């Protein structure tokens, strides 16, 4: 009897990175990758830095599905939905066809959080969560002079910065008092806001978007305090929510993300998860570095050598290229205080515990050069 395939659901960075790592260890077991997308291989962080790196949307992808299928010795089914996972039977149904698997990996990613707005052009609010979205967004802003961004988190700030590289000014709206409010102390967020205010980013803090209406050929965004902004496009970048529907319907444990242990195993046999959909030991980290760590542990686990994932310190780069930010937030539940030092062209913010250990940092501008040195002083996220 032929061996059932490893089935990977999802063709983002998580799915493809795992497939590459696993193929290095197992050249013969069949591999089936199913994806809602077109199966092109690309790195999602590139979507919010394409202008800065002078890449048109078509140049962001490194390979198409056919090339990936050949490199990975895999079957890749594109533009299909995994409809049902039956962990007891060890099968997944895709477009009505039931596939038995040896192991299944959920690498299904996350959905953008969408907060409904009023107005007669509410449907014009866009989000960018994959390469196809990004192509649509670029088409929509081909002649734009001004874009309004909802949300001053990592993605909102990166898009504001990248649009500047494309010659497009922006307004950024957020209910918090400063950008990156979940990651940075106030002084650091304010320094970032100041750096970009002078370059063409028009921050609107402490407010939300109430309505989006047509205004001739343009759009009018009305804020919660009544202020109106005339703009050419509206991008929602509020945050991500792990895609957990398939896992939940299969009866797997789900918290914020799909709950997995240190071996990336879900509560079901032979069912694993990694990437933006997964919550590893309580940590749901939608960044590149955790995907690389998870793929390098899950590949040997799937090849028969169970391996715990380790998370070293993983500072996150915010690609605000004119005033970059590298941030390593303190671990949840660890208390301490920020100390702030202003430097020539930057800022160093260190989060110290009561016993004077460095638990986190935020480095801005010129201080980002200290990233490597300070990272060595941080505790591992998962030993």
């Amino acid at each position, binding site marked *: 009897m032929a061996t059932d395939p490893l089935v990977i659901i999802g063709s983002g*960075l998580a799915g493809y990175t795992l497939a590459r790592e696993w193929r290095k260890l197992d050249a013969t077991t069949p591999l089936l990758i199913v994806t809602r997308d077109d199966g092109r291989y690309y*790195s999602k*962080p590139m979507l919010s*830095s394409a202008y800065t*790196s002078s890449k048109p949307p078509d140049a962001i992808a490194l390979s198409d599905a056919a*090339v990936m299928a050949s490199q990975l010795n895999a079957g890749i089914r594109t533009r299909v939905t995994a409809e049902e996972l039956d962990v007891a039977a060890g099968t997944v149904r895709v477009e009505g066809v039931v596939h038995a698997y040896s192991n299944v990996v959920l690498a299904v990613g996350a959905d953008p959080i969408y907060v409904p707005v009023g107005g007669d052009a509410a449907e014009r609010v866009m989000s960018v969560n994959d390469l196809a979205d990004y192509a649509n967004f670029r088409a929509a802003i081909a002649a734009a002079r001004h874009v309004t961004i909802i949300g001053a988190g990592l993605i909102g700030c990166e898009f504001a910065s990248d649009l500047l590289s494309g010659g497009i000014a922006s307004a950024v709206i957020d209910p918090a008092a400063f950008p990156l409010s979940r990651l940075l102390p106030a002084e650091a967020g304010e320094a970032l806001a100041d750096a970009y205010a002078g370059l063409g980013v028009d921050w609107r803090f402490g407010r939300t978007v109430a309505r989006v209406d047509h205004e001739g050929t343009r759009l009018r965004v009305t804020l919660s305090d009544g202020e109106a902004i005339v703009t050419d496009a509206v991008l929602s970048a509020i945050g991500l929510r792990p895609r957990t529907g398939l896992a939940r319907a299969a009866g797997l444990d789900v918290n914020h993300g799909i709950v997995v242990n240190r071996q990336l195993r879900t509560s079901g046999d032979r069912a694993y998860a990694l990437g933006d959909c997964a919550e590893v030991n309580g940590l749901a980290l939608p960044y590149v570095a955790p995907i*690389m760590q998870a793929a390098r542990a899950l590949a040997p686990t799937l090849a028969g050598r169970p391996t715990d994932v380790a998370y070293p310190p993983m500072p996150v*780069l915010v*690609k605000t290229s004119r005033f970059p930010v590298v941030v390593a937030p303190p671990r949840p539940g660890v208390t301490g205080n920020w100390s702030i030092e202003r430097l020539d062209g930057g800022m160093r913010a260190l989060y110290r515990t009561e016993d004077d250990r460095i638990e986190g940092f935020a480095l801005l501008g010129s201080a980002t050069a200290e990233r*490597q040195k300070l990272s060595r002083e941080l505790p591992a996220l998962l030993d």
Partner: protein
Amino acid sequence: MRRWYCLICGFIYDEALGLPEAGIAPGTRWEDVPEDWVCPDCGAPKSDFEMIEMIA
């Protein structure tokens, strides 16, 4: 000779070219690039790079 791609910013390290301005001679294999080397464009560590074969 292979090429390595920074998943954060898209920078490409080409083994054939090396990075002479960073003291890495042409022909330096990825394995021989120092572990504390970081992406010259975005500062990402070596572990955030991946070997790629690009179309055409």
